């Protein structure tokens, strides 16, 4: 059974998360402080972590690199409206975030995506997510078996999204991957490329179903 570390200073939230995780078939390991979380991390055997950023003894953001370093995917649980903080958490390596109050089913869905990603081999030649397949060695992309003709930037963008496999990628992360570090602020590039990509992959580009945006944060690829 997958063991998921839950870090939150509210006992009621810990109980609630425990119930939601049990419903999804996971075992919850609860920690009310950052130091308790680090102790649990040292104990090992964790498949993922759900982390509240407002902890009494330490900024939750500091835990993200440590958990990631130990190969534990992190879902940030945030009560804060601050988009900047969510982006910071994602850029530090969090797999995803979820805002309180959250929907239990949504949390479980995000957790599944995060777990699948951490289990995937790092350097695969053929990547797949939902209807997409990408052969990185042959530089070929297809949707539902239909080959896509993509210019280099659009190919790189789709590859980044497919590699993330449903995880959200921040605007800055996508810009850095596709255009390089010098262009992390040029969101306009991203908008143009996403629009062009949607024309080729979406059934109705005005009503995108596959490439979805989260306001102020980034894009994620849906399965269908």
């Amino acid at each position, binding site marked *: 059974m997958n063991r998921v570390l839950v870090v939150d200073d*509210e006992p009621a939230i810990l109980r609630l998360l425990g119930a939601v995780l049990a419903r999804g078939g996971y075992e919850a390991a609860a920690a009310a402080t950052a130091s308790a979380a680090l102790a649990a991390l040292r104990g090992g055997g964790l498949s993922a972590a759900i982390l509240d950023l*407002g902890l009494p003894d330490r900024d939750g953001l500091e835990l993200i690199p440590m958990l990631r370093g130990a190969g534990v995917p992190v879902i940030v649980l945030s009560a*804060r409206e601050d988009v900047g903080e969510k982006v910071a958490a994602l850029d530090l390596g969090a797999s995803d975030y979820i805002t309180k109050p959250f929907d239990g089913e949504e949390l479980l869905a995000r957790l599944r995506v995060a777990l699948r990603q951490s289990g995937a081999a790092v350097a695969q030649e053929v990547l797949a997510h939902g209807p997409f397949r990408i052969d990185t060695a042959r530089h070929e992309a297809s949707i539902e078996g239909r080959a896509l003709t993509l210019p280099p930037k659009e190919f790189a963008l789709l590859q980044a999204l497919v590699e993330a496999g449903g995880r959200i990628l921040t605007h800055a992360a996508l810009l850095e991957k596709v255009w390089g570090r010098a262009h992390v602020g040029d*969101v306009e590039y991203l908008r143009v490329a996403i629009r062009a990509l949607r024309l080729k992959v979406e059934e109705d580009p005005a009503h995108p179903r596959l490439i979805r*945006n989260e*306001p102020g944060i980034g894009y994620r690829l849906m399965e269908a």
Partner: protein
Amino acid sequence: MWRMLTSYGVPLLGIALVTWISSAMLAQWGLASAALLFLLPVLLGAARGGLGPGLLAALAGAGAYNFFLLPPYFSFHVHGPDHAVSVLVLVLVALVTSRLATRLREREEEANARAAVSEELAHISRLLAKGSPVEALERARAYVAGIYGALRIDGAQDGFSSLDQAAAAWAMHNGDATGHGTGVMAAAEWTFLPLSPKGRGAHALMALARPADGHTRPMVQIEHMAQVALLLGQGCDRIALDEERRARETLAESDRLRRTFLASLAHDFRTPLTVITGQLEALAQRSPEAGEALSAARRLERTMSDLIAAARIEEGSLSPQAESLDLIDAADAAFGAVAVPAGLSLGHAIPADLPFVRADAVLLHHVLINLIDNALGHAASRVMLGAALQGGRVALWVEDDGPGVPPAERTRIFERFARIEGGDRAKGSGLGLAIVRGFAEAMGMQVSIEDSPLGGARFILRMGA
């Protein structure tokens, strides 16, 4: 007084001594050597005390020489032209020596004064460079007060004649020393020195009154004081900058505190709400009553979000981050965040080739959610989003087939807690449209209401492409 006594007394004593010695030695030395000896006290008097003591010693020496050494003895009668020459030489020596000595002393005093001023200016500059402008200013004030008795700082213009005021205006405008003692409007009673370097236009002046003794203020002094004035100006500038920086820091700090307060308020509300909705979610699968409680809890959550948003508008802490946005994304994200009641449909007809707009993604998201919620609350069967390019700007609208908004209500409806009389089945906080207007205006958008072709209201946002 003592100085004066010694400067006159010592040469006179010298003359007495020389008279006594030469009278005694006259037989051995002869008259010429004795006469030379009289030069000594004259030189001494003139060099130490200046013209007065030198002249007195010369006259006393000439008198004593004539009275005691020249025949007829013990008489002031001048016997021949050679004796008259001796007296004249003594007087001339006194004049020339005292003049030379006075000039030398003046030079020395001037050099000492210059060195003192330079040292003082360097000290004030060091204080400024060290970042202690208040100390530097105090030091400069004390220095000026030490020379002129007092330095008064105020903004008053009274007490100045019209010529003085003209001189002050000139100094202020041109950054030159003006007025008494200078080359410009020298007839003025005051000397005006700008506190800013030439060419920058002064905002303040130092005014020095004409010296009480009626003399003209020397140029050297004006130059020194002009430098002091510049240092005073630099000190004032530095202090003003420091104050400005402190004010900005205080403002930023209070801004930060307000944000922290709102963030913690949101946190304090959301944590219990998360527990309530989470547990109700599990229960709702088995009990319809729990389902009702769940939707009530969700409504409470919305109301709480609205209150916090309204508070943010009220206290002006919104700082929109404009970025390039695709309205397709904005509509898609908003659709994902609203619950469409049974029997109603929600859709959009935003063209896929519409130009990108510049807006804050999160604020626009909230604006759209509130407009869609409002429309869903009034629609008979459908709510539609649309957008079009109009005169270089992008218009984005949300419309419904409900009863619409009467023209007379189209402004009032954006006020907080405004409701249209009768037939309102919206159950929101009454803040939704106030938040729409507050957020839209913060992003520089205009929001207005028209009649929709669908039969209800069309809320339009106009924004830059």
